[in-house]
Each structure stands twice: as structure tokens, then as C-alpha cells.
């Protein structure tokens, strides 16, 4: 029986030859993830289960990234609960400030997730690792607690939806624009409970960093997971990096899809999602005159090296508009270091930007760049919900790094080509 890549990975982890959409499975997990907001709740629930320890000290990653470096006393208490748990159970994958990164940038970079893996995380953007050809999905804290005890979880096999991107990407158009365009077409529940499989020539030519950006936002269309079949680009990324054996899966020719969407992206413009839903997408040239107070470049969506290079390309020898704060967040310490070496950080500082240590920071309205009432930001993050970055009457516009950088220079939402 023909299967999709998602079905094959689920079947392999359930010890079955074949699975079909709708089937409920008990699956073994390769990695379970929690952060400083979700892990404390999971730990509280874990203690109630009555097991003496975790299922495998090397398969649980706890990453403080949301409110760290600790923004206040309560956040410090939460981070400490997680750290204490990691010490008590001698967890191999706890990352302290100074060695950490935003979870969805850090785990692939460190080779802790790889092709063919099954990963669950108490964070909705766990779907990011689908870019490597893994099945990964977000769950809640109670599910994480059960997974830490048992090493398995239950999952329903999702129907798959195939997205085929034809054509060649124009300049300044990347993974963020592809995914925003897609969400703009199908809506924030357009792939509810389903697997989004991204294919086609434009995906094949996309860098790993661009692929991470796309799979990261699958959840913004309601999907269970986003996935891209691994290829030579994937192999080049995981070789010498992966700490486990990995396996490449691909969908069968005759695999069944609930729907197939086909987009020609040859003439796609950079995309911008207007408040307060990621589906309110327009081409940047149709944005109109939107002045901004803040631009944010970073996050698990666009905080990787390719994103920083793209932003630096626009900002080089230019200045941030006098009315704008530009805040840049490298995704991990390694990305930060590489950006330093390449002179990107210097470009940012010369332009008048603030550069932060890796943290989720303003992405979820945590700290390090909260918006006041009535303020407007353009951000390379993934959500523009009401109050997401601060005051309930502030606004967030989502874009890729080039548009965010150009907007920071011009003080309004702008196409990178407008920067003279």
C-alpha cells in the first residue's frame, strides 16, 4: 500500500508496516522537548505519574528560551524548576543561558533531530524539524509529562495535503514568502489536523534555512506537521552534525492526498501578513503606507544565518530610520558567533540596530522589545495575534528578513528594492 512520508515515519515508530489516515497509534519517540514556560507544568504533572525516573535521559531536551535571560523573579522561578529537574534526572540535553538558543534553531543545529525522527515538543513550532524530513509536532505539557515517563505518545495519523511550488524564486523572495503566501491562500485552519507536504522545484532549490522557515509555520495553517522529503541539501546539512543514525523517507508516487495545491512562484513578491492573523497576507507592493515603530529580525522562524545575511545585505552602509527601533535576535550562540565572524553584527550595529543574545524575547511579547499602545512593528516572527508583541492595541506585521530590514531603514513597510 502506498504511503506518504508522514505515514511512513509514523508506521516505523509504531512498529507497523502500514498505517492509514485516521488510525490511532502508540508511537515511540526519538526526542521530547520542553521550554521554560511549558516544562514547569509538565514537571508538575510528571511527579503525579509515579515513575522513579524519565524513560531516557538522552532523549529529553529542556531549553530555557522564552523568558531568559530571566526577565523577572517569577520567570526565574520557572526556569529554576526546569533546571532543578534536569539536574535531578541528569538530563543530557539541558542548555543553560550562554550555551542555549531558541529551541527550534538549536536542536537541528546541534544534530539532535534528524531525517526520519519522530519528535514531540511542548511548543507548537516543534513542527519546524519537518524541514529535515522528520515527523515533528507540538503537544501540551501534560502530553510531555506522559512522554517523559513512557517514551511514547499517542497520535492520530493525519491526512496529508501536498503543496507543489513550481518555477524559480525571484530575488528577495524566500521560504517566509512561500509559507505566508500559502497561509494567505488556505487560511489559518486550511490544513487543520493535517500534514502539509511541501514539494516542487522551488522547494528543491530552497536552502535548509528557508525550509525550516516554511515548516515552522505549518502550525499557522492549523497543521499537525509540515514536512519536506530529504534530498542532497538535507544530506549536506546533517552530515557530520547528526548525533544519531538517520533515515531518509519519501512519499510513494501513488500515495493518497486529501488535497493537492499547485502554485507558480516565479512572479511572487515578498509577502506581508497584516494584523491580527497570519492569513491576512498581501504582496508588499500592496501594503500601502504603513509607518512602523519597531522592526524585529530573529525568532525560530527567521533567526538563522541565512536570514541574518539577507538582513545585513539590505542594511549594509545604511542607517535605521530615526523613528524606528531595530532589534535583531540570532537564533543560537553558534549563529551569533558566525554572524560576528562574517561581520554581520558590525553591519547591524553600524546601522543603529540593537543586537540581543538568543531568546524568544519580543516574539511572544515576553521582554526585550514590547510594544506600547498604538505602536506598530514589522517582524520576521510567525504570529501577529492581538497583543502578541505587547499592548492589545499594538500591531504586528509579519514578513521575511529583507522586508523587515528595508522597513527599518525607510520607517514604513517597504520592498527591499526601494532601499537606495
Amino acid at each position, binding site marked *: 500500500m502506498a504511503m506518504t512520508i508522514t505515514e511512513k515515519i509514523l508506521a516505523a515508530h509504531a512498529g507497523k508496516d502500514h498505517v492509514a489516515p485516521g488510525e490511532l497509534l502508540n508511537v515511540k519517540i526519538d526526542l521530547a522537548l520542553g521550554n521554560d514556560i511549558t516544562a514547569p507544568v509538565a514537571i508538575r504533572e510528571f511527579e503525579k505519574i509515579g515513575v522513579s525516573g524519565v524513560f531516557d535521559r538522552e532523549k529529553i531536551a529542556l531549553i530555557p528560551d522564552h523568558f531568559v535571560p530571566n526577565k*523577572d523573579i517569577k520567570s526565574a522561578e520557572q526556569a529554576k524548576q526546569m533546571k532543578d529537574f534536569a539536574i535531578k534526572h541528569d538530563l543530557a540535553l539541558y542548555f543553560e543561558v550562554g550555551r542555549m538558543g531558541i529551541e527550534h534553531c538549536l536542536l537541528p543545529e546541534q544534530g539532535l533531530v534528524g531525517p526520519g525522527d519522530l519528535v514531540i515538543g511542548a*511548543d*507548537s513550532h516543534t513542527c519546524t524539524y519537518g524541514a529535515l524530513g522528520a515527523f515533528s509536532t507540538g*503537544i*501540551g505539557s501534560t502530553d510531555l509529562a506522559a512522554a517523559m515517563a*513512557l517514551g511514547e505518545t499517542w497520535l492520530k495519523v493525519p491526512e496529508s495535503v501536498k503543496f507543489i511550488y513550481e518555477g524559480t524564486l525571484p530575488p528577495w523572495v524566500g521560504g517566509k514568502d512561500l509559507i505566508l503566501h500559502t497561509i494567505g491562500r488556505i487560511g489559518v485552519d486550511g490544513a*487543520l489536523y493535517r500534514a502539509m507536504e511541501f514539494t516542487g522545484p522551488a522547494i528543491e532549490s530552497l536552502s535548509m534555512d528557508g525550509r525550516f522557515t516554511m515548516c515552522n509555520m505549518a502550525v499557522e495553517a492549523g497543521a499537525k506537521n509540515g514536512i519536506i522529503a530529504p534530498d542532497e541539501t538535507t544530506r549536506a546539512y546533517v552530515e557530520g552534525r547528526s548525533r544519531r543514525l538517520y533515515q531518509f523517507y519519501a512519499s510513494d508516487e501513488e500515495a493518497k492526498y486529501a488535497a493537492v495545491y499547485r502554485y507558480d512562484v516565479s512572479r511572487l513578491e515578498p509577502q506581508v501578513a497584516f494584523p491580527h492573523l497570519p492569513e491576512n497576507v498581501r504582496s508588499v507592493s500592496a501594503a500601502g503606507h504603513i509607518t512602523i515603530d519597531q522592526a524585529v529580525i530573529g525568532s525560530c522562524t527567521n533567526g538563522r544565518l541565512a536570514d541574518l545575511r539577507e538582513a545585513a545585505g539590505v542594511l549594509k552602509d545604511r542607517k535605521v530610520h530615526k523613528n524606528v527601533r531595530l532589534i535583531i535576535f540570532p537564533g543560537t550562540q553558534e549563529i551569533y558567533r558566525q554572524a560576528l565572524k562574517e561581520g554581520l553584527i558590525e553591519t547591524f550595529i553600524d546601522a543603529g540596530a540593537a543586537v540581543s543574545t538568543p531568546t524568544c524575547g519580543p516574539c511572544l511579547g515576553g521582554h526585550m522589545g514590547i510594544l506600547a499602545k498604538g505602536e506598530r512593528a514589522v517582524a520576521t516572527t510567525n504570529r501577529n495575534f*492581538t497583543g502578541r508583541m505587547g499592548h492589545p492595541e499594538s500591531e504586528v506585521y509579519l514578513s521575511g528578513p529583507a522586508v523587515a530590514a528595508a522597513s527599518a531603514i525607510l520607517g514604513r513597510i517597504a520592498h527591499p528594492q526601494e532601499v537606495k
Partner: protein
Amino acid sequence: MLLKGKAWKFGNDIDTDVIIPARYLNTSDPAELAKHCMEDADPGFSARIQPGDIIVAGKNFGCGSSREHAPIAIKAAGIACVIAPTFARIFYRNAFNIGLPICESAEAAGDIDAGNEVTVDLKTGIITNLTKNKTYRATPVPPFMQQIITAGGLINYVAERVKNHV
């Protein structure tokens, strides 16, 4: 179990940032979270509701973050049940795991008005609008998830399993 309460209406795509904004996520204390439940959609909501009241919302309720703080805040605020045509998948899972009853019914979500008296029979999935004298049927809950409900949430279910294996 028969739930009975007054309906509070919300629109489509109510996200978890609206249900419980991140600025309150430096605690996971249910009583503290309850105070800010739905604050950015309807300030003062949690102070106005009566224990046992019911949220009736549009499609894709609970979209966004995986924060379990969202169903915890709703439950701790005293809301007995959420009715919507569809739920975002992580929210759906979390609600069952922590024991917040939810019902999928497009018909009920569309027809119930704010302030209507509503009953929900969780066993049969029958929703009754006492004000309008109408009944609606919720999508049946898969048998496996019924086991979780019967056990009183996922943790009890898992603890039970662990006990029997050891």
C-alpha cells in the same frame, strides 16, 4: 454528566494569546491564570462569568501556541465547557488531557446566542438550548479519548497503566 450554564459568545480563530496572553505566563498557578482568561478579547470576562457558564465560539478555537495554560485558565475561571465548530489540534488534545470538556458542533455554535441557557450531556453529546428549546448533536469523541475522560485526564490514565505494568 449534565452541564448547565449561560452562553458567552466569541468569534472565529480565538487564539491562545487572547485566551491567556504571554505576559501572564511567568506563572502556571491556575487561580492566577484564571483572572486573565480571555482578557484581550473581552476585558473583565473572568469577573463577570458564573461558575458553570459555557463558552460558545467560532471555528478553530484555541489556535496558536501549545500553552496548556490556555485550557487551564478557562477551566480555573469556572467555564464548564467550550462549544465550537472546530478546535485547533493542540488545544483539543490539551483540553482532554487536563479535563476541560469541549464539544465540536457547528450547528450549536452557530445557533446559540449570548445569554442562552444551555445544557451539555457529555455522555451522549447532546447539547440543549433551553432558551430556544432546541437540541444539537456534537461530534462523537473517539473511544480512546473517552477512556482518558473516564480516567479523569491523561495523567491518571498513564499512572494507572504504570501501576499495572510494574
